């Protein structure tokens, strides 16, 4: 076995691309993806403000908006310009403070403040909608308070009247709604899965490229496979270890328990990725085609993790497809460990959820036997010819 592992390591050493895949490329990818989201919290998003009233009230509301860290109000002279800016995505929302806003308020008519937010950029749009409404409501409360004080209500009572029902909302497990903590770990899990797939596909195709299939079968079909598994599983786990150390050690993202359980989950995920790649390899037996088909399978895995769009809202077919992606099984364990401090029983259930992939093993066995027989026949033909 030691010799077989040495054989694998030698092959790895001789392939610069494979070496890059197990060393610096994933780390580079990690850095770039983290850097993209490194702002963490959306701040200073441009919002067009069209102030047609130019009253003390409208200026107060704009100031109120400017005080919100999420919003960066930008003044526009007329609605046409603001609309054009919104269509170019220069601003993500338009707020119109109508003519005679202050007057209508004072004489007891109910004026309307129009807000249009860009829902094509769903994340930004929804955030701005709620933040703008919150800021304006706060501003208007001040107005209402003054009115009550003027009509003889005591300050204490006025405060209570305004905030009859206060609300206190808590974002569990990610207290300040940090996008780095929300998005980056699942994205990196998807990245590691892709790298794992590529690495194993390359390790298998390498035998084709160098015409070493006979050597493989002579050394023992399954022994060589085990050697590959023994070489690449620890290497990929090391990558994940570095990523976790970076995220939860250095960046200090919230973490509820020890990461011990993740080792078992990582081994399981990698073994299943190996199984899928091996099946595809045994069917196609061509380096470029194996990569193409594996890419088709694994590229959309992030969408199916259920982190951005919740699993229980996906249609049935998508939920089935999700079961085929090892990363979606893994992300359940990941969130369980990171957030819920889950017990061993939950981990065992999650590991057991991979059982369907066991069905691949007999398929692989049959296919590999067939490949070995074909190979032997070819050799016989060569010897006889």
């Amino acid at each position, binding site marked *: 076995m030691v010799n077989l592992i040495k054989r694998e390591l030698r092959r790895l050493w001789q392939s610069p691309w494979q070496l890059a895949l197990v060393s610096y490329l994933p780390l580079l990818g990690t850095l770039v993806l983290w850097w993209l989201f490194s702002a963490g919290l959306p701040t200073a998003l441009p919002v067009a403000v069209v102030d047609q009233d130019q009253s003390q009230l409208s200026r107060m509301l704009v100031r109120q908006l400017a005080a919100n860290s999420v919003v960066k109000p930008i003044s526009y002279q007329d609605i046409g310009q603001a609309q054009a800016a919104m*269509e170019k995505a220069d601003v993500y929302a338009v707020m119109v403070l109508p003519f005679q806003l202050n007057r209508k308020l004072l004489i007891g008519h*109910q004026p309307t403040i129009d807000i249009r937010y860009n829902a*094509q950029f769903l994340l930004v749009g929804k955030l701005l909608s709620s933040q703008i409404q919150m800021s304006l409501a706060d501003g208007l409360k001040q107005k209402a308070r003054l009115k009550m004080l003027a009509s003889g209500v005591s300050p204490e009572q006025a405060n209570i009247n305004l905030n009859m029902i206060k609300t206190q909302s808590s974002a569990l497990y990610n207290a300040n709604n940090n996008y780095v903590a929300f998005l980056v770990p699942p994205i990196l899990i998807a990245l590691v899965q892709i790298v794992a797939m590529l690495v194993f596909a390359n390790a298998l195709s390498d035998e084709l490229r160098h015409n070493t299939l006979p050597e493989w079968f002579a050394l023992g079909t399954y022994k060589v496979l085990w050697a590959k598994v023994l070489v690449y599983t620890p290497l990929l786990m090391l990558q994940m270890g570095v990523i976790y150390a970076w995220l939860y050690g250095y960046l200090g993202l919230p973490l509820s328990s020890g990461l011990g359980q993740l080792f078992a989950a990582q081994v399981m995920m990698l073994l299943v990725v190996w199984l899928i790649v091996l099946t595809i390899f045994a069917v196609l037996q061509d380096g470029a085609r194996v990569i193409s088909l594996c890419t088709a399978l694994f590229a959309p895995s992030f969408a199916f993790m259920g982190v951005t769009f919740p699993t229980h809202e996906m*249609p049935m077919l998508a939920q089935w497809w999700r079961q085929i992606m090892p990363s979606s099984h893994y992300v359940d364990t990941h969130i369980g460990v990171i957030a819920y401090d889950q017990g061993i029983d939950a981990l065992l259930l999650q590991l057991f959820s991979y059982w369907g992939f066991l069905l691949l093993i007999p398929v692989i066995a049959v296919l590999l036997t067939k490949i070995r027989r074909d190979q032997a026949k070819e050799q016989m033909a060569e010897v006889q010819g």
Partner: protein
Amino acid sequence: MNFFSLMFEEFKAIVSDKAIAITLFGGVLFYSVLYPLPYLNEVPTKQQIVVVDGDNSSLSRLVIRHAQASPKLDVVAHVANLTQAQAAVNAGEAHGYLVIPEGFRHNLLRQQGVTLAYGGDANYFLVYSAILEGLVSVGIEAGKYIQFTGLLAMGETAKQVQLELDPIHLNSVPAFNPSLGYTSYVVPGVLLLVLHQTLLIGTGILGAGQWQRQGYWRQVSLGQLLCARVATFSVIYSIFTAFYIGFCHYWYQVGVQGDLGQVCLFLLPFILSTSLAGVAFSSLFVRRDLPTQVALLISMPILFASGFVWPVELIPVPLQAVSQLIPGVVTIKGMLELNQMGASWPSVVHLWWQLWGLALVYLVLAYFGVRYRLNVMPINNEQ
């Protein structure tokens, strides 16, 4: 060899190469189903929450009924305390909770402030925001109900009370994607990315497989080869693009605001610059299994750098600058503005010129790259 027979040779090489065919024809069809699949239900509704009712009064029950009536919420259980509520969230039985404190009704009737507490699982932002929006509106409605009855009791008329509670009407309306649907948000960008990436892969595999062999590509001039290759891929991708931007947008009911002529005009330099970038990309490789791997690894950064998932304003400037060299990033931005948000042609024309500029840059790179590859003598291991 005349130009059309050269194009025919190219086309034959593309469809007879199974690795390219899987990616181009298989991939483009497969992804048109797979990528939108998770989002077909569009918006999260009826998120499960548990309630801790410490008050058990008529008013607390009213609040719970309001929560149940909200389209965003579904009250699945009553639990005794906050610990149990959080346990339910951990176990996945619910995604959020509402706590009504003891003395809720009593304090309200005595005109004292009370606090409602909400919580949600922020591991899933979409679920969390749905729960929060639902609960906040329930809280506001409950508060208004109390104030309404209180002010009525003091002898004000209903109309006066309405005005006092709502002195200014806030009319906040989503634009461009009025249903706030997830499909309309994700599909236009992702489909363009799929076109971009598969085109890079297709040209990449084709080139990488040819450089070290003898064949028709060595029997024509470099200019002819480049023109024929770009023309062939452009024809194929015009059909794919028409399928994605035309049929798929219609099928998934993505809002379309663009003018057909302008959209076609805008996509022309996209297809050309991406084909040229693909040919330039292909000259980096001599192994047919490598272009796909590189394209796959860069696809997630390209997706997130294109600015519709995560706002461009928050992306670090160096990354923004680099991403301007990728035709896909420029196209996604331009197409979202032109086709989804109804921007006028003059406001996207700078992106159009940028795509032409990129086409020129990649033409030069493709020219020198392919010349370098073809000047190296072929290894005649086949034929």
